[in-house]
């Protein structure tokens, strides 16, 4: 089976008014099916750009991005991935159920099938009685769960998430992290997850990809030896191994960034 994501030799250069900005340079990354990979790094390291390249919302300047063995473009047209952003991005004039149904409706699924699938998804993300509510009647955490359900609507085997919990309070955030691990395990989907938070990346991931800025690149890939992501629970947050991994990621972040980044460059 081919990788969920294969990024090879990718550069991304944006043309801005003031000239060219190198967002990413020589990025290579593989994500295995069912694997949970977080992208972490300071602002401007290109982690969101990398995610957007995988989603085919941007095109690479050089190099190739493949999703399940096809081009990112074809994968988007075939709806091989689901995506969630920091903003839930729900349509305020549609109910929760109708928001989740949106991608299904757009692909022309018959109405009765849509209803059955939406019911499944509402149960999956634990929104039982809220199908008829409108987004402005929900808390931020609940809106984000709707967004995740919508991203999963077409049973993608790849979930792309751009700081989906970034605007939530810490308690909600930790709760949704555990929920996300459960959902990812239930669906078997690979996840590429952009975050600013070291504990979040550690808790969720099989591997944490540490990126550094100017120009954006992968400084180090830190494997998390914390057991399978599906079996993790909140008690892990107080475990010694959890703190060791946090330290490892933090050192990779600072080792790459502060000292003019010799290590990060040589690592590739």
């Amino acid at each position, binding site marked *: 089976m081919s990788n969920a994501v294969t990024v090879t030799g990718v550069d991304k250069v944006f043309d801005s008014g003031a000239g060219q900005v190198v967002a990413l340079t020589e990025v290579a990354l593989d994500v295995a099916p069912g694997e949970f990979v977080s992208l972490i790094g300071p602002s401007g390291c290109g982690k969101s750009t990398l995610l957007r390249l995988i*989603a085919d919302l941007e095109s690479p300047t050089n190099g190739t991005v493949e999703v399940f063995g096809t081009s990112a473009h074809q994968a988007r*047209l075939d709806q091989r*991935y689901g995506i969630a*952003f920091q903003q839930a*991005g729900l349509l305020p*004039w549609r109910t929760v159920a109708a928001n989740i149904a*949106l991608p299904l409706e*757009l*692909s022309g699924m018959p109405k009765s099938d849509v209803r059955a699938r939406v019911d499944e998804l509402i149960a999956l993300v634990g929104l039982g009685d809220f199908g008829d509510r409108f987004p402005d009647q929900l808390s931020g955490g609940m809106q984000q769960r709707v967004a995740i359900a919508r991203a999963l609507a077409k049973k993608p085997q790849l979930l792309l998430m751009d700081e989906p919990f970034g605007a939530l309070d810490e308690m909600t955030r930790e709760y949704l992290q555990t929920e996300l691990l459960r959902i990812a395990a239930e669906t078997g989907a690979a996840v590429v997850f952009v975050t600013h938070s070291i504990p979040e990346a550690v808790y969720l991931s099989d591997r944490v990809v540490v990126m550094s800025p100017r120009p954006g690149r992968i400084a180090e890939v830190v494997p998390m030896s914390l057991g399978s992501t599906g079996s993790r629970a909140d008690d892990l947050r107080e475990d010694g191994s959890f703190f060791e991994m946090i330290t490892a990621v933090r050192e990779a972040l600072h080792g790459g960034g502060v000292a003019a980044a010799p290590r990060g460059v040589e690592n590739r």
Partner: protein
Amino acid sequence: MATLTRTRPPSGPLGRTANGAERAIAPVVLGIIVVGIWQLLAGTGLVEAYLLPSPAAIVDEIVEFWPSMVSAAGITGLNALVGLVAGSLLGIAAALVASTSRPFDGMLAPIVAALAVIPIVALAPVLNTMFGADSQTGRQLIASLAAFVPVFITTARGLRQTQPVHRELMTSFAATRWQVMRTITLPTAVPYTFTGIRLASSLAVISALVAEYFGGPRGGLGGLISSSAASSAYPRAWAYVVAAIALGLAFYLITLALERWVSRRR
């Protein structure tokens, strides 16, 4: 958040909380006081009756000419309604074209800007001549031109208000242009359009009414205001003015209710 603001009663100026009934009563009481003072002033003869007839005299005229007022309001109201509907449809259509095609946007924008500054009612004599003295078409055209401008401007703006996150989602869903239009762009624009229609409703009534001052068939409110004033029947002229205000208010309130309704459930 929205439910919080909805359930919290607005507090009055003295820190009291006013409920809906109190808020409605306050302006009514003020209105009664003003009319009372007006009646007193007119009764003492401080103000000449031809300058400002007393409210009682105006009410007498309203009662006496009630059937004529209803039919006049019907004529003017129909002109305004035809104009409002036609102008709104045209405004929406033009905004859609402008939003999908940049060259059209460039062509339409200056034309609408020109339309917005032209006193459209000034076209009334010309249009009356064009369509003949017994036709309402000129007036309806004036009302529709007046209604067109705000509906076009608000709709064109609304069509540009789609959120980037919604557009990117639609891209990730591999949605076609038409699907994006139907599921994101149009629903986002609808409340803007209805704000435009609310603004246009008053303009349509005013234009239909004032256009009657420049000749054409009699029988509308505007024509009757000017002919009553011309024959020195000032209380009757004022009675028709009251009817015109009522007509304008009716248009405004109905379109306001429409706007509220669609904004809640697009």
